[in-house]
Each structure stands twice: as C-alpha cells, then as structure tokens.
C-alpha cells in the first residue's frame, strides 16, 4: 500500500479479519476437530469421557440399525434422484422456450424451494392423510383405495420421496436453466438446416452439451440428499418400524435422544467421508470438463 507502515497494516488486518476469524475457529474449526476427538470416546455429556479408540467405528460396521439407516438413505436417493432430475430438466426445457406466463411458472416451481421443510412436510402429511387426504381421493378414481401412506412400512419412504421431489424440482430446474442458456444457438440453427426434428436436437445437441451441468446437478443433489432429515423428522420421525430411519435421523437419535455423543459423532464422520469422496469425484471430473 502507498505509504503505509507494516504496523498500520497489521492493525487494519486485525480490525477486519479478527471478528470473523474468532468465530470461524470457535464455531467451525474447533467443533470439527472436537467432533473427530469425541468420535473416539464414549460420552453421555454427564459422566467423564472415556477414550475407546476406534471402537465406535468398529461397532458401527456391525450395527444393524446403522446399516439399515444407510440403506434407507440410499433407497431415498435411488427413488428421489432420477425423478427430481427428469422433472427438473423437463421443466427447464419447457421454460427455456418463450412460453406464455413464463415468469409465473418459474415462480410457481420455485415457490416450494423457498418454503421451509417443516411447512412443506406438514402440507404433504395432510395430503397423505389416509381418510381425508387429497392423494387417496385422487387415487380412488383409478380404483386404488385406503392407502395408509405414512403408517405403512412400504409406503412411508415413497411418500417422503414424492414430497422431496415436489419441493426440489424448482431448484434442479433453475440449475438446468443456467446450463441451457450456455448452449450456443448456432448448433440448433445448423441442425435446422440439416432438417433435424426436436427429438433429434434434444438427443444429439442439448443432452451432450448439458453433460457438465447434469453432472454438477447430480453431485449437488446427491450431497444434499445424503443429509435428508427435516421432512423425515416431521412426517414419520423415522418410522413406521424404522422404515424411514435415515442417516441424519439416526445421528440425531443417538446424540440427542440417547445421549451417545461418541457414537453419534463417529456416524457423522462416516457421513462426512461419503460426502468427501463424492466431492473429490466432482473436482476431478470438473477439471476434465474445464479443459
């Protein structure tokens, strides 16, 4: 800087950076390191902490409830991800054209995204109500009756998936809209000259050129859906019979219902490792596309 002494600069750096830095270390770095440390202990918050090495992790590997939670999370993702991607892309393709009321539709699809999970979950719980819910009412037209959505072990997860897809379509749509706008119109003009139909244009131009976006959206949605919790907590609390007990619900139960801080922390680190690996894959692939 022009005519500034070192001491003065240090003063200004401190003024600007310290408040944030103190918070960063107190509420992010320190908890991150403590969480790792706690995962090597048994601790119920009251009695003294007992160091147990990697016992929690060993125990997790043979814990049926944990693997069930892992499986439920993966089940959620397998149901949720393809649906939200297909609907999100379809909506993006429709709204990328100059349709009437485009702004209205865009707002309508994004509305669930800005609404809290708790509000959305309560509305859908009411829609899934077995006796007076709108969904069973519509299903009765096609001869399906009396589904007990959230109390039925085989239907509770599909109900949560449907709710989540509905909430997130707008989010995926917006990401895809961004990708679509990056595709140069000259490709389509060239295809028009060759007489290609819209299906061919979609298959041979849009989809291949959209690959980096598709990949990015998949990774982001994957990371987010490994952390699925709010809708589960409100709609089923992990039930019925543990059928929707997902990873974060399981962490929450062990930490804040059974007060097994060490065990819950170990679980959260497994979750972290999964997300870390996905992030690494993304970074690698993104580099390839950037060149």
């Amino acid at each position: 800087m022009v005519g500034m002494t070192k001491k003065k600069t240090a003063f200004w750096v401190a003024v600007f950076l310290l408040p944030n830095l103190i918070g960063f270390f107190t509420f992010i770095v320190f908890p991150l390191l403590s969480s790792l440390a706690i995962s090597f202990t048994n601790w119920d918050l009251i009695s003294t902490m007992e160091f147990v090495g990697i016992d929690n992790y060993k125990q997790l590997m043979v814990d049926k409830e944990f693997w069930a939670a892992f499986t439920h999370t993966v089940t959620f993702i397998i149901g949720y991800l393809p649906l939200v991607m297909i609907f999100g892309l379809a909506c993006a393709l429709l709204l990328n054209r100059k349709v009437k009321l485009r702004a209205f539709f865009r707002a309508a699809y994004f509305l669930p995204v800005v609404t809290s999970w708790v509000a959305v979950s309560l509305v859908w719980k009411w829609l899934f109500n077995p006796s007076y819910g709108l969904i069973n009412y519509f299903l009765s037209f096609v001869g399906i009756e009396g589904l007990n959505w959230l109390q039925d072990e085989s239907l509770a997860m599909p109900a949560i998936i449907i709710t989540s897809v509905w909430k997130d379509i707008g989010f995926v749509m917006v990401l895809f809209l961004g990708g679509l706008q990056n595709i140069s119109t000259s490709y389509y003009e060239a295809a028009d000259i060759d007489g290609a139909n819209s299906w061919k244009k979609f298959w041979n131009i849009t989809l291949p050129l959209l690959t980096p976006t598709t990949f990015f959206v998949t990774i982001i949605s994957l990371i987010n859906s490994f952390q699925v919790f709010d809708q589960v907590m409100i709609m089923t609390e992990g039930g019925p019979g543990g059928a929707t007990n997902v990873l974060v619900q399981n962490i929450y139960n062990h930490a804040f219902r059974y007060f097994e801080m060490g065990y819950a922390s170990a679980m959260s680190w497994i979750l972290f490792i999964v997300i870390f690996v996905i992030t690494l894959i993304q970074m690698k692939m993104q580099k390839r596309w950037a060149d």
Partner: protein
Amino acid sequence: MLLPFLWMISTSLKNQGATMVFPPQFIPDHASFQNYKDVTGAFPMLHFLGNSLLVAVLTTLGQLLLCSMAAYAFARMQFWGRDKLFLLYLATMMVPAQVTMIPQFILMKNFGWLDTYQALIVPGLFSVFGTFLLRQAFLSIPKELEEAAFMDGANHFSIFWRVIMPLSKPTLATLGIFSFMQSWNNYLWLLIVINDKSYATLPLGLSLLQGRWETNWNMMMAGVVISVLPILAVYLFAQKYFIQGMTMSGMKE
C-alpha cells in the same frame, strides 16, 4: 405444482367438520378466518413469527458485516499466511453441518446458551460460504479505484465502506436474501438448542403445533400459511437474488 399450496389455503379456511368431508371440498362452503384467530390466540404463532423475524434479520445483518469485513481482508490486504488461511476456510465448506452440530451443541451448553437467542444467532453469523462469495466479488473491483482513494488520504475503513461495499450491492443482496431464507427455515439446529418454546421460531413452532393438534388440520394449515406468507413476500420481491444465492451455493436451505 401449486395444488398443495391451494389445498393448504383451502383447508385453513374451513371449519373442523369441513376438513372431514369426503369427497373433499376445494372451495369451502363457509370460509372464515376463524382458524387464524384460534391459532394465534390459543397458540403463540405471532410470538414465533416475531422470533423468526428477529433471528433472521440479526443473523443476516451480522453475517453480511462479518463476511464482508473478512472478505475485504482476504481480497484487498497483504498479510502473512493469507492464502493458506483462506484455503483452510475453503476446505471447511464441504463439511456437512451434522459433523459440527454435536460439538456446537456442547459449546452452547457450556456457554449457558441453551434456550437463548444467542444460540439462534451467534453461530449463524460465521458463514464460510458468505466470506468466499464476497471475496470473489471484491476481487473483481479494479485496484485503481482504491489506490486513488488512498492518495486522497482515505484509510481502509472508508475505502471498505465508501468504495468496495457500494460497488458490491448485488452480491450483498444475494447473500443477504439467501442467509435470511436459511435462517427463516432452519429447523434441526433449533430442535437441538431450544426446549423452551418462548425461543422457538416458526419451523419449530409449527412442529410443536403438530404435537398439540395432530388432528386439527384446519388450524395446522392456518399456522403453515402464517409461516409461508412472509418468506413468500420476500421471495416475490427479490426472486433474482434468491435464485442466485441457491445456484451459487448449491444448497437448498
């Protein structure tokens, strides 16, 4: 797509008998705002609304200030270890909130902050994403502008406040709206640190409503409408910034 919202509004205007009618009525026979009166009278919905506003506004303002100040240091100042420190910030961005949540809870407990507004506001002030976003914005502002100001005898504070901040308004708006929404919709953290419902914000308040009136769906939907309307109003007013915030962070809430 809008049907669940319309059904929510329709239910909130019905009396309890009308919610139990089959086939369902889309337009209630005797629409009234009685549920809104009941849910705000017998249940502190308005108090939750006030808490939500207080927490969201303070979190947003505080986060904007703290993030922009640190971002200024990272983008505009030279100091030892700057780039390594910033790399550490970036590295923590991929850590899922569930990892730090348990020690953060213990921290709140040791501070004596369980069931306080501090617990709802203070940890939310330190956003790595926000610092990162604003640093990017500040980096794009030409150096010549501040050099000229330094020549005129300005110090860092006045350059930050008079040059950098006004030029970064769109990014500040994006971050502001986005952190407002995150704070407004936050649920898991409240579930952990708040037991006393006088500190509950709307999402936690709604979940308490559920425990109390599981079968009174018309009243629950009135509560949900109350929680959705403010964020809806903000959204319609600042759509562009909402969408930017979400696409840039890749986070849904």
